[in-house]
């Protein structure tokens, strides 16, 4: 008998890669309905994941902007002179972590207050005669977490009569946004896991149907890697093809939404995230998820039929 090659040639010839690629893409066509089933599973699941990701990113963005609104209102002693007020402003300005300082004279404050009451405000017009309010500095921290420390520092300064930074609301909001963020991550992780599970499931089913064929290939002398390569390509293509539609739909849909609603939103405290970096991030995530799950599902399923 002629010498048997036992060395297990580990490098493959280039033309063989070409063959694997051709074979892998051919299989997509050959398996017709099965390919459709797999791709549509990828499509549908990625669409759900992508849509939720967009929603959650927007909610997080909203939560961030809420946090940014946290401000310290410094009520200035009614007796303080203009120079003393200027002094106080400079003192505040030297604190690290201060972003902006706005000055609201008491008259302006009353005006705003009466306006904010709407119709009912009319009954307080009389207050204009003897304005009961203080002049106020509105201090914004660079970082909402510094608010606490800044407030403590400012409180000790001269000519500060009083100080308000809504500890309650602030903390409530802060934990609420944290909660939203965590819930969002959990939700997305759960959906992603579900998607991965179902996609891998579907691919597995299509490969089980080819169990006998894999066995035959082995009996005819194919190595495991020779059999695996076309499946690798197939899984990759499945995942990438399956992510095209969700990405297109999300990009188009979000863009439309952004321009239609985002610009004239009744809720002016809420602002949509601009499409540009977000959609790109989501698209990359979807393609990568699709490709990885496709390849992984495919190779995992082939593996157990290779032992022949």
């Amino acid at each position, binding site marked *: *008998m002629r010498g048997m090659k036992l060395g297990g040639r580990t490098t493959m010839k280039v*033309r*063989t890669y070409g063959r694997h690629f051709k074979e892998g893409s051919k299989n997509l066509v050959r398996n017709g309905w099965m390919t459709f089933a797999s791709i549509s599973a990828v499509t549908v699941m990625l669409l759900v994941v992508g849509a939720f990701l967009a929603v959650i990113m927007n909610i997080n963005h909203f939560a961030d902007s809420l946090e940014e609104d946290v401000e310290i209102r410094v009520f200035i002693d009614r007796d303080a002179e203009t120079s003393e007020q200027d002094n106080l402003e400079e003192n505040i300005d030297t604190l690290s972590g201060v972003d902006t300082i706005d000055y609201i004279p008491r008259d302006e404050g009353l005006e705003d207050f009466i306006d904010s009451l709407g119709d009912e405000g009319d009954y307080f017009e009389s207050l204009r005669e003897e304005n009961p309010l203080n002049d106020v500095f509105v201090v914004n921290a660079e970082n909402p977490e510094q608010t606490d420390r800044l407030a403590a520092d400012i409180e000790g300064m001269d000519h500060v009569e009083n100080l308000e930074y809504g500890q309650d609301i602030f903390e409530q909001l802060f934990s609420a946004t944290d909660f939203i963020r965590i819930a969002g991550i959990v939700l997305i992780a759960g959906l992603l896991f579900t998607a991965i599970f179902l996609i891998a499931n579907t691919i597995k089913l299509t490969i089980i149907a080819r169990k006998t*064929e894999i066995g035959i*290939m082995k009996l*005819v*002398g194919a190595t495991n890697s020779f059999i695996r390569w076309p499946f690798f390509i197939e899984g990759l293509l499945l995942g990438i093809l399956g992510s095209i539609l969700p990405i297109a739909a999300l990009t188009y849909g979000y863009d439309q939404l952004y321009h239609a609603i985002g610009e004239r939103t009744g809720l002016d405290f809420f602002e949509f995230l601009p499409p540009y970096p977000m959609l790109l991030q989501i698209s990359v995530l979807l393609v990568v998820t699709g490709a990885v799950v496709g390849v992984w599902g495919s190779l995992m399923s082939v593996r157990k039929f290779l032992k022949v």
Partner: protein
Amino acid sequence: MIQMQDVWKTYPNGVMAINGMTIHIDSGEFVYIVGSSGAGKSSFIKMLYREEKPTRGEIFIDDKKLADYKERHIPYLRRNMGVVFQDFKLLPGLTVFENIAFALEVIEEKKDEIKRRVMQVLDIVRLKNKARFYPHELSGGEQQRVAIARAIVNNPSVLIADEPTGNLDPDTSWEIMHILEEINDRGTTVLMATHNREIVNSMRKRVIAIEGGRIARDEVRGTYNNES
């Protein structure tokens, strides 16, 4: 050279298919394996290319213990054996051409060479005009001939055929037998399980008769039935 030393095979369901077989087949021999239905011919054959592993005993191919082969070296063992399976085992999704080409793609043969060789064996089994057909579009005998073509396409050192003429008419069977004889003349060891008394008795070769998983008879220029 193929050797078996006290080989036993019991299937998971408890059926004892091979019960102590010791045999020695030299390189270049032509051997018929005969025996009644369920005697153990296919089981014997399947152990040679490791579709089944023996429960006990040792098998040597080219003086190398089969049990010593690592899982990943088995494909290289199989590439030196052409096998015609009793149930053909054609890939249903591939055309006749692609089915036969597969055995050459596996050894990373050049495309042109693949094409040349495949058309050559298709000519030998007289199925050139069915190259583009799928297995389910073929008659039983045509499928069997494709299986034969695939087994011989890469000039294996050993050709193992499990009832390769079961679905063929006598004329075609003879053609196939002459092909096998020719291949054997070129130095290839041929093992062939068969029920075809006519062929065994006319084309006299070594006959190994299996009965109940044991060797009942082993004659150099034997006949299908015991002559005694």
